[in-house]
């Protein structure tokens, strides 16, 4: 999109504690938390902060990037 002057990036949330998981088994979520280095599920604000950053002039040099916001859940 950059040749058109439109900057595109993505954010990839991990397991975020919102209504999205209202019917996810709570015991399962607790198991997942044990494997998350950050020690907790994500909050909606954790992801919103990164979305805001990507839209801001401070992120002008990020193009086609995917930022993982998952507390290290996929960290190997």
């Amino acid at each position, binding site marked *: 999109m950059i040749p058109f*002057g*439109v*900057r595109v990036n993505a954010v990839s949330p*991990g397991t975020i504690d919102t209504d999205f998981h209202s019917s996810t088994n709570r015991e399962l979520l607790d198991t997942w938390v044990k494997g998350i280095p950050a020690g907790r599920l994500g909050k909606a*604000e954790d992801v919103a902060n990164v979305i805001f950053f990507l*839209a801001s002039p401070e992120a002008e040099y990020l193009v086609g990037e995917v930022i993982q916001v998952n507390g290290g859940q996929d960290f190997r």
Partner: protein
Amino acid sequence: MDKKVVLITGGTRGIGFAAAKKFAENGCLVAINGNNEERGNEAVRELRDSGYVVQYFKADVTKEEEVENLISSVTEHYGHLDVLINNAGGLHGRKSIEGMETDHWNKVMDLNLNSAFYASRSAVPHLKKSGGSIINVTSIAAYMGGGP
């Protein structure tokens, strides 16, 4: 970011609503999209109570025409568009591949993938003018299958 016009699909709750709040707190003019009018009005009420500039735009993002109208309505209301957040998404329930009907698959693709295509296609002419940006909200599920 002051006075930037930001449209968030699926912005009435969860990550979308949190993003709407963050943009609004920073002086942006926010357009919240969702298909549930009650939730949309509630979201707008909460943000306006804090003095923010926000408007709810109802649209089913799986319908091409509704998305086209959504972008037109937002740009008509605010005069232009600076940021599109393709946040609308969902699972319609968890199923293993063996138990997944084609209809379910298509619904999930419509909501998560096609919606972003429809919105981006309609928004790009406006974003070109404003030198704006698109942020796509994907998921760890793209890498890990979303768990059991």
